[in-house]
C-alpha cells in the first residue's frame, strides 16, 4: 500500500487519512509537520538546483493538500470532486428561501453597522455567522459520510460559499471601521 504513495497520490492518501468529511485535525497537523520536515527546501539545501526544485514542488504539493483538507469547505469540494459529484457552484444558484432571507437580513445589518462605524454589532454578527457556519460543517459530515446524500451536500456547500463570502465582508467592514 505504501508503495502506491507518490507525487500524484490524492490529498487524503498523502496524509494517510481516511477519505471522509470528518477529519482528525490533530492527525492532519501532525502529519503536515512530519511531511514538511522531510520535503521542505530548507532540508535539502545541499541538493543542488535540481534537488531544490524537486523539494520546492513537493513542499508546495504538501502545503496545497494541507490547506485543502484543513478548510471544511475546500475539503468538501475536493471530496465531491474525488467521488465524481459536481457541486454545480457555477450554474446552480437555487437556494432555500429562508436561507436567502436570513442572508439578506445579515447583509443589511452589516452594511448598516459599517456605515455607522459600529464595531460591536459587526463583532456580534461575525460571532453568530461563525456559529452558523460551524453548524453547517457538522451537517455536511452527516450528509457526506453517513447518509451519502451528495446532492443535498452540494446544496449545502453552495450555501457555505455564500456564508464564507459574507464572513469576508464582515472582516473588511471591521477593518474599515477600526481604521
Amino acid at each position, binding site marked *: 500500500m*505504501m*508503495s502506491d*504513495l*507518490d*507525487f500524484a497520490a490524492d490529498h487524503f492518501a*498523502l496524509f*494517510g487519512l481516511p477519505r471522509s468529511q470528518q477529519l482528525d485535525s490533530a*492527525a492532519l497537523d*501532525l*502529519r503536515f*509537520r*512530519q*511531511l*514538511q*520536515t*522531510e*520535503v*521542505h*527546501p*530548507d*532540508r535539502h*539545501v*545541499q*541538493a*543542488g*538546483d*535540481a*534537488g531544490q526544485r*524537486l*523539494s*520546492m*514542488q*513537493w*513542499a*508546495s*504539493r504538501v*502545503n*496545497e493538500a*494541507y*490547506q485543502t483538507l484543513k478548510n471544511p469547505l475546500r475539503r468538501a469540494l475536493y471530496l465531491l470532486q474525488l467521488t465524481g459529484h459536481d457541486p454545480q457552484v457555477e450554474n446552480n444558484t437555487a437556494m432555500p428561501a429562508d436561507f436567502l432571507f436570513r442572508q439578506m437580513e445579515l447583509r443589511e445589518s452589516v452594511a448598516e453597522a459599517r456605515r455607522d462605524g459600529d464595531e460591536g454589532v459587526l463583532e456580534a454578527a461575525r460571532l453568530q455567522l461563525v456559529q452558523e457556519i460551524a453548524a453547517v460543517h457538522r451537517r455536511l459530515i452527516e450528509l457526506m459520510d453517513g447518509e451519502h446524500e451528495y446532492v443535498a451536500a452540494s446544496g449545502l456547500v453552495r450555501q457555505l460559499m455564500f456564508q464564507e463570502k459574507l464572513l469576508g465582508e464582515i*472582516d473588511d467592514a*471591521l*477593518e474599515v471601521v*477600526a*481604521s
Partner: protein
Amino acid sequence: MALLQIVEPGETTAPHQHRLAVGIDLGTTNSLVATVRSGMSVVLNDVQGHSLLPSVVRYLADGRVEIGRTAEKHRSLDPKNTIVSVKRLMGRGRGDIAHGETLPHDFVDGEGMVRIRTIAGIKSPVEVSAEILKVLRQRAEAALGGELIGAVITVPAYFDDAQRQATKDAARLAGLNVLRLLNEPTAAAIAYGLDNASEGVFAVFDLGGGTFDISILRLSKGIFEVLATGGDSALGGDDFDHRVFCWIIEQAGLRPLSPHDARLLQAHAREAKEYLSSHGEAPITIKLGSGEYVDLLLTTDSFTEITRTLVQKTLTATKKALRDAGLTVGDIRGVVMVGGSTRMPQIQQAVAELFGQEPLNNLDPDKVVALGAAMQANLLAGNRAAGDDWLLLDVIPLSLGLETMGGLVEKVIPRNSTLPIARAQEFTTFKDGQTALAIHIVQGERELVADCRSLGRFELRGIPPLVAGAARIRVTFQVDADGLLSVTAREQSTGCEAHIEVKPSYGLSDDEIAVMLKESFTHAGDDAFRRALREAQVEAQRLLEATRSALEDSSTLLSPAERETIDRAIVKLEAVMLGDDRRAIDAAMQALGAATEDFAARRMNQSVQRALAGKTIDQISP
C-alpha cells in the same frame, strides 16, 4: 581533550568544514550582522566595538562613499547627498513615499523604483542599500577570517514582492550570496523560541524605524509555523518623529523652514521621543538658523495624544492578523516585542491592554532579528548539528492575483498561504481568433486593480486561433521560500504549448546588476573573476558531498546502469572542479544534476513514506 563527534548520515558537521554564514538585519535606522560561533548566535562588532551600523550613506563629489557613523555625522552639513531611511524607498515609486516633501533629496522618477540625484550621480535605493550591506560583509569577513558562503537577509514580513526583489538585488550587488530572505518577526521568533525552548502560539510585535509587522506563530516540537502576518510597510518610529516635528512647528508657529532648520527640528523631535521612553516630559530647545530660539516642553500625555492614531494602526493590524489566524487574544501564550520603537511606553501599554498580559522584553529589541537570522543562515549553510533540528514554515503576507475583465482582481494565491506554494488558474480568450493574451500580475487585498500594486505584465503569444472561449490557458504562480514569485503561462487546448517565465525585476535587470557588480569590484580592488570561480568550486564541492551521502544512504534505489551514469558524472565534475574554467564546472554540475534527477525523485518518495511509517509507530506506542 578532543571530543569525537557522531555524525548522522547526510550531516556534515566536521569542525574544519564549518561554513561561514551570517544573518543581516538591514534596518531602516540601523543595520547589524550576526553569526553562529560554537553554537551561539552573536552580533559582530566593528573595530571600534559598535554593533549597530547606522543605515546612512553619504555620496561625495570625488566618488568616495561614507557609510554609517561618519555619514551620520555629516548629515546636517550635507543633507542632499546623505541618504537616511533608504529602506522606505526600496521597490517604491515616487508617489508611494510618505512625507517625501520633508526629505531633502532630489527624487528622480525611475523605471519601477524612485531614484535619488546625488553629487556622485543618480543612485537607486538598491545601490544605496548595497553600500550598507558591503560594509557588513567586510565586517563579517574580517571578524570570521574568510569568505562568506552566504547570508540570510531579513525583510519586514509585510514587504511585497517588489520590496523583496529589491532587497535581494541589493545583496547580490554587495557580493552576497542570499541563502534566504527571512521575515523579521519570524527571525525574532526563532531567536526567542530557541532561547527559551517555548511551545505554544506566540505573537511577535515588531515596530522598527520605518516598518511595522505583526506575526502570529505556532511553536511546536522544533517547527516554527507562521499562522498569519500583517502590518504596514510604511509605519515606524520615523512617523512618531514626524508627529513630534509637526507638533513643534505648530506650537512654535514656524513656517516656512529652511532645509537646515527642518533637519535640526527632525533631530530634536527624535531626541525628544527617545527621552520620553524613560522620562515623564522632554524639554525641547532649538536654536534656529535665524538665531531665534524654540523652547517647548513635550509631556508624555501630549506625546500619547499626537501619536494615538499611529498606535491605533498597529492595533488594527494586530486584530486583523488574529482574525486571519482564526484565533483570539486568549489563545496567545506570549507577545514578543521587537524593534527599537517598542521602547515607547504607550506602545508597551497598548499591547499589554490588547492582549491582557505584559509583553516579553527579555531580548534586546535591536539585536534579536539579526541573531535569529544568523541561526537560520547557519542551518542553510549546511552547518546543521545534532539537536539543530528545527524548521521554519512562513507565509506570504499579501494576496497575489491577476487582472480580469473590467479592471477586477482575480485572487490566485490568498494572503497567509504557507510557502512555498504553487497555484494554477485557467483562463480563456474572449474574441474569435484571438492569438495573444495580456497577463497583468498584481499584489494586494482590494478588488480593483487600481487599488493593488502592479507587479508585472507579460504577453502570452502563439495561442492557436480558435472561437472565443475555446482556448484553455493555464497560468501558474509559484512563490518560493523567499516569498518571491515566478509566473508561467501555457496554452493547452491543442497540445501546442506556449511557455513563458516571468520574474518581475522592478527596474534593475540582471545585466544592469552585472555591470554594477563589475564596477564595484573594480573600485574595491577585488577580483570578480576569482570570486565567481571560488563560488562555483564551493558549490561543486557541496553538490558532490550531497550526492555521495545520498548514494551511501539509498544506493538500493538504483540499477547498476543508473549507478554507473551517476558515477561517471561525479568523476567528470571532480576532474574539472579544481581547474579554473568556471563554465566547465557549471556544465559538469548541471550534468550531475540531470543524471541524479530520477534518483532524487525516488529518494523524496522514500522519505515521504518514511514520514508516514513514522507516524504509525507513534500511534501504536502508548
